């Protein structure tokens, strides 16, 4: 029942251009959210008196707690629903199609012949897209008064054609061409613009509402007038301070909310945060969705945002975590300090062993060749010398080998931001060196199982350059 269309080809501001009702463009602009550019969906008022869709402002505040329009500090808990605007938007959206039909009509034609309601609808829905341009140019030539007259004629036509199919009560009233509500002739126009709620078959409840039906219990249409007790609404969820909450507690909380607890810590946080946004925005909605629909939304979000990679391996997730702009580089360096030092020590040991072996070998060969050349070992040998790496290390740390390798993989991952379409080569003729040159020499000897990664573990932590133009 939401006025928003599913396709991308949705009603647009520019629909009014080149029509006699071009003055409605700024009106419609005022009914649209500055963030999503769509009609306000559950508009919320900030403490700086700006209005945004509930989901838009909540999502933005989760990245930056300021107003997108004036940069004033905005607290999410202080958002308040702008119900009057919600009504205005809903009413405008309801009236919009009719208004647009009227605006695009070739009004210069002398009193058009009577048509059946069905035909009337056909010409104005099917033919609308093709005829748009021609009609609008023609109608531009017509003066305002004629337009109104023509509009009225059209409405009567529609009503009269209704007469031919339905028996009309002789009460001196006419039916609204949209919602069939009966009223005086001169009330039709204001009614269409202000309070018509749409075809009765689609919106029987809305129609009854606009007739002041006391049985109507929907609070969405006239909350201020119809003093009906608030339905029990779902409670809003509080935001969590993720830095203060332990893994177990977060998982427990999410399990209580019925959310998946799969994935890494940062995934859990993002999932929880998105759920809070979706849920709280839904609390602001006049027609709240069911819980399972929200869960579906969350699932779609998770798929489209790429947080759930097709192979959601631990390494990939860690990689995504490290790529994140908010990644705590120092914290990561400190947390994994021991691990890094172990790896460095291992690498040195391995290197020494290999050097020693080679030296011994070269001494044997010394008779028929010069040994000095073999003294300088190719670095590749160091890196591909895992055979001499002590296997016991993995057990010593109480980690499985796979886990340690996973960490190794994640180090590969963190150099990946380049694969998102931005190639450094676009900006420089040189091949990327991933900042490895800024590392202490021994860092290049971190042993890896498998192919040598393009960078190494601490690269993103230390090598993020800061470019100060002054």
């Amino acid at each position, binding site marked *: 029942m939401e006025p928003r269309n599913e396709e991308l080809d949705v009603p647009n501001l520019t629909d009014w251009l080149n029509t006699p009702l071009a003055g409605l463009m700024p009106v419609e602009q005022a009914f649209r959210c500055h963030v999503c*550019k769509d009609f306000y969906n559950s508009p919320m008022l900030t403490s700086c008196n700006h209005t945004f869709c509930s989901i838009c402002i909540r*999502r*933005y505040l989760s990245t930056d707690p300021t107003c997108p329009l004036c940069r004033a500090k905005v607290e999410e808990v202080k958002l308040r629903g702008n119900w009057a605007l919600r009504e205005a938007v809903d009413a405008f959206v309801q009236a919009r199609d009719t208004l647009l039909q009227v605006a695009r009509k070739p009004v210069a034609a002398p009193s058009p012949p009577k048509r059946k309601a069905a035909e009337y609808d056909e010409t104005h829905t099917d033919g609308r897209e093709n005829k748009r341009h021609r009609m609008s140019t023609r109608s531009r030539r017509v003066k305002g008064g004629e337009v109104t007259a023509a509009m009225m004629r059209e409405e009567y036509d529609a009503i009269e054609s209704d007469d031919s199919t339905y028996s009309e009560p002789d009460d001196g009233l006419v039916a609204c061409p949209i919602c069939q509500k009966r009223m005086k002739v001169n009330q039709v126009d204001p009614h269409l613009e202000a309070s018509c709620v749409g075809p009765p078959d689609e919106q029987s409840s809305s129609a009854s509402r606009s007739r002041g039906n006391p049985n109507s219990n929907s609070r969405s249409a006239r909350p201020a007038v119809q003093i009906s007790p608030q339905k029990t609404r779902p409670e809003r969820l509080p935001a969590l301070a993720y830095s203060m909450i332990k893994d177990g507690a977060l998982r427990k909380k999410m399990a209580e909310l019925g959310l998946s607890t799969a994935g890494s810590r940062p995934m859990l946080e993002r999932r929880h945060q998105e759920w809070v946004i979706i849920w709280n925005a839904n609390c602001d909605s006049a027609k709240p969705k069911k819980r399972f629909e929200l869960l579906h939304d969350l699932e779609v979000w998770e798929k489209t945002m790429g947080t759930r990679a097709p192979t959601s391996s631990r390494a990939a997730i860690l990689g995504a975590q490290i790529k994140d702009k908010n990644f705590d580089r120092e914290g990561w360096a400190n947390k994994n300090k021991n691990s890094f030092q172990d790896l460095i020590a291992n690498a040195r040991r391995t290197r020494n062993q290999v050097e020693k072996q080679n030296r011994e070998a070269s001494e044997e060969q010394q008779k028929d060749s010069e040994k000095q050349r073999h003294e300088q070992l190719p670095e590749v040998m160091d890196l591909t010398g895992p055979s001499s790496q002590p296997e016991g290390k993995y057990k010593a740390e109480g980690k499985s080998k796979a886990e340690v390798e996973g960490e190794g993989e994640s180090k590969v991952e963190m150099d990946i931001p380049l694969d998102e379409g931005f190639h450094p080569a676009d900006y420089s003729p040189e091949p990327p060196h991933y900042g490895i040159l800024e590392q202490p020499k021994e860092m290049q000897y971190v042993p890896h199982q498998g192919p040598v990664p393009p960078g190494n573990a601490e690269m993103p932590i230390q090598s993020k350059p800061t470019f100060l133009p002054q």
Partner: protein
Amino acid sequence: MAPGAQFAAKRLGKELTKISKGLPAGIVLVQGDNFEEWLLDIQVLDSNPLYMGQTYRLKFKFGSSYPIEPPEVVFVKLPDRPIPIHPHIYSNGIICLDLLGQQGWSPVQNVESVCMSLQSMLTGNTKNERPPGDEEFVRGNRLRPKDIDFYYHDNNV
């Protein structure tokens, strides 16, 4: 439709429809057939001798979080599309403008407003120079524009 990538696509769809009805003078959409990357040409319309008669190519890249997150905007060098000379535009096309950073960006901005900001940034410039450290930056930079920590010091842009 759900949040996420469709959120960005929906918003971009709206911008595209609006753009197709007309853009301000000096801004032309060159390519906008997807919701990931658009190309636009901009011109400086006044008689600033630094930019007179030139057309510049802009590349917009939109993430799935657009417009919550800013797009990535850079100038692209082509045979007939130079990189405009400006103390805040590096010769590899990267632009130092707070509007395009996490801090300065606001979701009420859009492609059109970004283009207009860049137009006015060029119009107001009188210095025929690149940013300090341009050569070094261009040679050494391996970061995406959004990951660079710019220090926005100049309020006269």
